[in-house]
């Protein structure tokens, strides 16, 4: 496994984690409706990225598992939703939301840098398949970053002043 393989693995794991984190934030902040719905929408991109990275892995000598299985919403999810609803009336929850958005942003930034490394290398080595993958996926990672940044921008003035 060369550096490309190592980076593919790091990015694959990063996209898997980001999908999981986005869905967890969506659930935790169910009372922040836009965060809930859009986080769920953009988690789908990370899921697709992980799957496509896994499909390309063998070409670079790595076996990657692809996205995680999601179990159907169970008792634990229901409990988390209830907790989210109870917390949704408290102002401190606003700070928790900003923390979560910041962490999502940093995770997406990490993935973005890995896409950058792969895209650059793909161009240098004329690796068409890898370049196509990065060209398709990297813009969506940048949109995840832009979105988390926008939400922080919009919500901070209200949530920081009011606590």
């Amino acid at each position: 496994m060369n550096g490309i393989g190592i980076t593919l693995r790091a990015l694959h794991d990063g996209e898997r984690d980001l999908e999981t984190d986005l869905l967890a934030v969506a659930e935790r902040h169910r009372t922040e409706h836009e965060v809930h719905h859009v986080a769920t929408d953009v988690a789908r991109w990370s899921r697709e990225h992980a799957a496509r990275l896994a499909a390309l892995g063998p070409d670079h000598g790595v076996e990657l598992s692809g996205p995680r299985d999601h179990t159907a919403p169970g008792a634990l999810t229901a409990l988390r939703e209830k907790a989210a609803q109870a917390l949704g009336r408290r102002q401190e929850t606003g700070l928790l939301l900003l923390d979560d958005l910041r962490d999502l942003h940093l995770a997406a930034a990490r993935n973005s840098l890995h896409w950058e490394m792969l895209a650059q290398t793909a161009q240098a080595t004329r690796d068409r398949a890898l370049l196509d993958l990065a060209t398709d996926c990297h813009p969506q990672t940048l949109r995840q970053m832009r979105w988390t940044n926008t939400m922080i921008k919009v919500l901070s003035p209200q949530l920081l002043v009011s606590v």
Partner: protein
Amino acid sequence: MDRTPDRIANPWGARTPYAPGEPWPVRTDLHLADGVTEEDVERWVPSASILHSNGDAMDIAVRAGRIVGVRGRAGDRVNRGRLGPKDLYGWQANHSRDRLTRPLVRENGRLVETDWDTAMDRVVSRTRALLDDRGPGSVGFYTSGQLFLEEYYTLSVLAHAGVRTNHLDGNTRLCTATAAEALKESFGSDGQPGSYEDIDHADTIALFGHNMAETQTVLWTRVLDRLEGSDPPRLLCVDPRYTPVARRADIHLAPRPGTNVALLNALLHEIIRTGRTDRAYLDAHTVGYDELAAGVEHCTPRWAAEICDVPAAEIERAADLLGDARRLTSTVLQGVYQSHQASAAAVQVNNLHLIRGMLGRPGCGLMQMNGQPTAQNTRECGADGDLPGFRNWQNDRHVAELAEIWNVEPDGIPHYGPPTHAMQMFRYAEQGSLRMLWISGTNPAVSLPELGRIRSILAQERLFVVVQDLFLTETAQLADVVLPAATWGEKTGAFTNADRTVHLSEKAVDPPGEARADLDIFLDFAARMDFRDKDGGPLIPWSDPQGAFAAWQRCSAGRPCDYTGLSYDKLRGGGIQWPCTEDAPDGTARLYTDGFDHAHPDRCESYGKDMVTGSPVTPVEYRSLNPDGKAVIKAAEYLPPHEDASPEYPLQLITGRTVHHFHTRTKTGRAPELNAAAPDVWAEISPAEAAAQGLADGDLVQVTTPRGALRARLRTVAIRDGVVFVPFHYGYWDTPAGHRPPDGLPGRAANETTITDWDPLSKQPLFKTAAARVTLVARRGTHEQRATDDARTGKTA
């Protein structure tokens, strides 16, 4: 003349057929109170309709200080004398005995009558205390789509530069925010491209999620008159219901709710595949076509057929209809705006016109419709939170210009982020950071999604709620202070319809009791708050409608919505379309006849947003994408709806309107003919779906979603299988419980069941994408059903 016809039975009245390119013939509609003739009328006072977005011009008949009827204005460009049922009968609500005539304040948990000084003192002292303790982010304003331009502009100035809050929105968020957003995305700025006259010239008319026959009856009359004339236009209808529009359509597509983007992408795919684009137009006037072509390459009719559950052959036929059109007029409304991926879908209709080069010419009309009569003014005056005059909050020069007009410092106008939309304001109130909400002319306790949640937010002790309205609405019953307002016919002001036509509506009679014009209430608040400009002068120096109009004219100068060529005097002669300037003294029929000036980076109202996340595009990105100011073609990928049918909730719920009512029935429910025509809520499903669920027409059923439930009488009608439709108008003011469902029983408001979800671009709530189940409560005509009905309506045997 059509005198006192029964327009409940026939909402569209008699036909006056006409041929393409001919002027629409006049038909003057009139309705006067029983026993009153035209000779008895002492004065006719010019106005226009306030009960839908069409802007039908009329004269109000006055006798002995009372409104006694209405007559359509034959000379007006919008309606040529016609009026719809809500206009003919709705004026009677002005005289209702239960109008608010004195201010109310909450004492020991109960609302009691008081005087204006006491009520306004409470509002002002609470505002001051909150500004001192918590800052402007603790105060929000939620206004309407039914006030006048002068009132919105005054509210906009006092909120933006007086209170300095970013929390200002109108209920236009629920009806027309997506129209504004779609226009900003494609053309850089709000502003309706087309004109109603395009109906006269079109050879093809496409209605996307627009039940024009019920929401804009007079415009539909115009279409019917074309259909009955020589060389009629061909009609495409996209609607899951078999509406009166669908019945007249050459092609009716009834997609699954929530799949508009997939359907539109397939239509665009077909038009591109068959080479029916206007390459010269695209090159001259647009950017972004290649991305669209690449984005819809995989969106074949067969692909969309799977998602939308519409036969691929029908999609191909529809694409042929659109692709062969030489003069295509399209309209878009709530079936798109209130559904999943609202803005993304509305933008694809813009794209349809752009790739076919069908804009700015007679018959090539594109109309992103409005839902409410004065929604356009909410938008242009910035009462929806935007900066007035379609100015761009991300453009420092626009902010500086506004600061100069208001004589304030630029940093005194909040522009650190997009304005806070209504749904987010309610969220801030729920979460505790917003502590005062001033609601004028709207009824969120019936009109917003998930009413159990909305009621619990409004009822919070920590939230100070001011409601300014005509009646003790469901929302007013939850208020801390209630301010009695004057309405249409009792005050003077201008307003603008869905095709940019400005009308003047003059005061015909005095308001009841101590009720005051909304303008006077806002001016009183501004004076008591003593808002000042940077030189110590009054921030709001005007004191009457004419003064407010003049101030607005100055603010609009040089912007797309330029009013500088208008005056009250000029408007008395009939409606005029903005922009109206010295150079265009008769107004402007169509925008974008020659390019897209408003999209220039220096002029545009918005740099656009991400079509999935709603994140704003940066100024630098926009400038590099669109340096010369062309129309922007934006592709959108289809995303599955956020809530879909499941084994537990096997149906899709959509809410909507009926021809007899407006909004939450505060007026139409008090007009006897309109109320009698549709007195109570119902639910619609198809006969096949009813049979599958073991239900029959007339049964009392319960519609349940994860949020709540409502009970309604079942109507089996032609509608997609798997879909249940419920009109959203019905609340509780005319039931014993007053503002909520009866104890222990489901209510009748559709919004008990709707989901809290909104379009990430326009922030418009989605009322047409929820999962539901329908179950039997009682069979038609049984004792149980009658008993339940009586309990709901408060009747006793």
